[in-house]
Every structure is written in structure tokens, then in C-alpha cells.
């Protein structure tokens, strides 16, 4: 058995790092509105999300999302391509986190793998049609569907409860919001932790450590669940702030409608086999909750910035993935892998230090947004 232990170990560590960033990047999906409406205290919210993500990782063990399935030729996927793809996804996750932009971790990972494959095996190894049908079209349809559902839901909750005393309404929707946000968190754990489990299992199979038909080893499940829940607990406060305060001013009924709509769309898409990005759905729901309330408005500038980020997720992550593959291949061997990993670690550390200049944390995540919202007459 010829196993490149160094490469395998680096791939596993990188996959767990990606899982960690996936967790803190996506905390906002489930908990941003609960934090914005003060249904839950920020630390309690991220703690609950972390716990549910951890539990969710154990609920379903079907490795549904081995990386970029159907999008690149299976034969083109080597350990180096997986490593470079993970670096591409990681880079995009960290960049969008710094700017506080919610973006899909799955699309970032797919972009990274596509970029690495393009440069490693050529354009023929990438299935462009599948990329359009599985990534680009759903990226447009997910927020539109969520906007539609959340707008209708928000309009209904305000219309039906207009005569309910404010304190009863606030308390009731707060409880409902916690329930629906918990469902979204659990769904996130089942979907996204599996992605890393898939990557690590694939790496172990490719490296010949386990057989092709072997299931996901228990330690892989535990480490993936731990990484995503630790990341979730760290709380990507920058993204939480954009989602909870930046897109629109959210009141408790809107928060309930947004989370309920997200849960409805995520579960429907999962049931009917048309997977949609949790991030795109949740962001769409928040926009819909702004549109569905009379006298409310959406900060379209923030929404447009987010839309642009979604459009360039694939090419940007692909570029980072391609660069990572090129660096690894140019230097060659274990040294190449370790060098690229080291450079990525240093750059990540640097970005973290820069982010400390304008810290966003549990204490200021709910501060007033700089741009005041314009209300409809």
C-alpha cells in the first residue's frame, strides 16, 4: 500500500479547517434573525446552533455530497486536486467572512475543485452543463423562491395578528422563531457536516487507507461534527450582522416568517431532490420578510453586494483553487503541499489580525446599521 501520509494528513486537516469556516460562516443562516430580534442572546444563539449542528451531523450518515459529484470527471479527482479545491473554498469563505457577506460554502468548495481540475486535467474534465444546472441556476432560483414564500408569510403574520396585543405577539413569535431557527440549524448540520465527511472519506479511499465500500469511519463523523459545531460556536459575527441588521430592520414577526420560510424551502427542496443552498435560501427569506411588511424596506445596496458575491463565488474560488494546485504542483511533492498549506495558514492568520481592527462580536452585532433604512410613504 503506497500511501502518501503527509498529503493525506494535510488534506484531512484542510478539510476540517474548511468545515470550521463553513460552521462560522453559516451560523448566520439559522440564528441571525433570532439575534437581531433578541429572541435569543447572541452567545445562547450560537451555542444552540452549535449543539444542533453537532447533533445534525450524526442524524444522517449518507455521504450525499462527495465533492463536486457529477460536475468534474471522477477520474480527474486526485488528492492534490481535493487539497487545492479545499484551499480555494477556504479562501473564498474567509474573504466573504471578512466583508460580512453571506455566501454558499458548497459553491465555494465546488468552485475550488473546478478551478483545480481545470488546470490539472484541462477543460474537458469539467462538465459545464452540470455546473450550470446544479450550481448557477439554483443560485438564482433559491433566493427568489425564499423571497416569494417569506413575503407571503410576513404579510400573513402581520395581517392576522394586527389586533393581538404587542407583548403577546412578541413573546409568541419569539418562541416560534426559536423553534424554526433550531430546525434550520439541525438541517444545516445534517447537510454540511456530511460534505466534510465525504471529502475525508474520499481522501482515505484514494489513499488506500480504507476500502471503496467502507462506510464513513466513526472518528471522521466525530471530528467533522466537532469542527463544524466549534466553527458555529465561534459565530461568524460579521455575516450575522449583515444578515440580521444589514438587509432590513427585522421585528419579531418578520424573524419568525423568515426562519419559517427558510425551513419550509430547505425541507421542500430536500424532499423533492432539488438541493438549494441554505445561505441563498436564508438570505432570500430575510429580504422577503422586509418586502412583506408594510412600511418596511430592504437595503438593496447590501442585497446587490451579496448578489455580486454569489455571482463571483464560483470563478473566485476556482481561481484560488487553480493557484493552490499550481503552487503545489510547481514545488512538487510533500514540500509543495506543505508550502501551500503554510502560505494559506499565514494569509488566514493575517486576515484574522486585520479583522481585529474593526471587530464585530456578540457585544456589537446588534448595533445600528450605518445606512439608515428608507421607509415607504
Amino acid at each position, binding site marked *: 500500500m503506497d500511501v502518501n501520509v503527509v498529503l493525506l494528513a494535510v488534506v484531512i486537516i484542510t478539510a476540517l479547517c474548511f468545515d470550521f469556516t463553513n460552521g462560522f460562516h453559516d451560523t448566520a443562516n439559522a440564528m441571525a434573525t433570532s439575534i437581531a430580534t433578541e429572541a435569543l442572546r447572541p452567545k445562547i444563539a450560537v451555542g444552540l446552533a452549535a449543539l444542533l449542528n453537532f447533533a445534525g451531523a450524526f442524524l444522517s450518515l449518507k455521504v450525499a455530497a462527495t465533492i463536486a459529484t457529477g460536475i468534474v470527471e471522477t477520474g480527474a479527482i486526485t488528492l492534490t486536486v481535493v487539497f487545492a479545491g479545499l484551499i480555494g473554498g477556504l479562501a473564498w469563505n474567509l474573504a466573504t467572512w471578512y466583508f460580512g457577506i453571506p455566501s454558499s460554502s458548497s459553491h465555494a468548495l465546488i468552485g475550488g475543485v473546478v478551478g483545480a481540475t481545470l488546470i490539472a486535467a484541462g477543460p474537458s474534465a469539467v462538465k459545464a452543463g452540470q455546473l450550470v444546472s446544479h450550481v448557477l441556476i439554483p443560485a438564482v432560483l433559491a433566493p427568489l423562491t425564499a423571497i416569494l414564500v417569506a413575503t407571503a408569510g410576513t404579510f400573513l403574520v402581520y395581517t392576522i395578528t394586527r389586533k393581538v396585543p404587542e407583548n403577546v405577539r412578541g413573546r409568541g413569535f419569539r418562541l416560534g422563531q426559536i423553534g*424554526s431557527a433550531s430546525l434550520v440549524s439541525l438541517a444545516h448540520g*445534517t447537510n454540511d457536516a456530511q460534505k466534510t465527511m465525504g471529502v475525508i472519506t474520499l481522501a482515505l479511499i484514494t489513499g488506500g487507507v480504507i476500502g471503496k465500500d467502507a462506510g464513513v469511519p466513526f472518528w471522521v463523523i466525530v471530528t467533522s461534527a466537532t469542527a463544524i459545531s466549534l466553527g458555529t460556536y465561534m459565530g461568524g459575527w460579521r455575516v450575522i450582522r449583515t444578515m440580521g441588521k444589514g438587509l432590513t430592520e427585522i421585528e419579531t414577526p418578520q424573524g419568525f416568517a423568515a426562519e419559517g420560510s427558510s425551513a419550509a424551502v430547505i425541507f421542500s427542496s430536500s424532499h423533492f431532490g432539488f438541493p438549494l443552498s441554505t445561505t441563498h435560501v436564508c438570505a432570500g427569506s430575510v429580504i422577503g420578510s422586509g418586502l412583506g411588511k408594510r412600511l418596511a424596506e430592504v437595503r438593496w445596496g447590501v442585497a446587490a453586494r451579496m448578489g455580486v458575491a454569489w455571482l463571483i463565488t464560483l470563478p473566485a474560488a476556482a481561481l484560488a483553487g487553480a493557484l493552490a494546485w499550481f503552487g503545489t504542483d510547481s514545488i512538487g511533492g510533500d514540500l509543495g503541499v506543505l508550502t501551500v498549506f503554510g502560505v494559506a495558514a499565514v494569509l488566514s492568520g493575517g486576515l484574522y489580525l486585520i479583522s481585529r481592527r474593526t471587530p464585530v462580536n456578540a457585544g456589537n452585532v446588534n448595533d445600528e446599521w450605518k445606512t439608515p433604512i428608507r421607509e415607504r410613504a
Partner: protein
Amino acid sequence: MSDWLDLTAFGQVVLGSLAAGVGLALCFSLALAGFASPRPVAKAAGVLCLLVVAAGAVLSLYVMLRK
């Protein structure tokens, strides 16, 4: 377009999401309105609506677990 987009699945997602999302908003709001009302019948209706919401949550969990 249909080569790139499974229209049937997408249509089902939109309709399913609308039914579930609007249904949740409707039932939960009616439950709150029922509880806030002084009339016992309205309160009973509120309990019923809340049960529908709970059933929906259980169904969602079932959908998630059977994936």
C-alpha cells in the same frame, strides 16, 4: 432550458415551500390570535392550530431523517 433545469422538481419545490411556509405562518398566527382572544372557542381553535404547527415540525424532521 429543460435540459438545465428540472422544471417538475423545481415546481414541486416552489409549491411545497409555499404550502409549508404559508401554512406555518397562517397556523401560528391564528394560534396566537386565538390565544389572545377572550373567547373559549377561539382559544380552542388556537390550540388546534398549534397542534398543526407541531405536526408540521415533526413531518419536517421525518423528511430530514429519511434523506
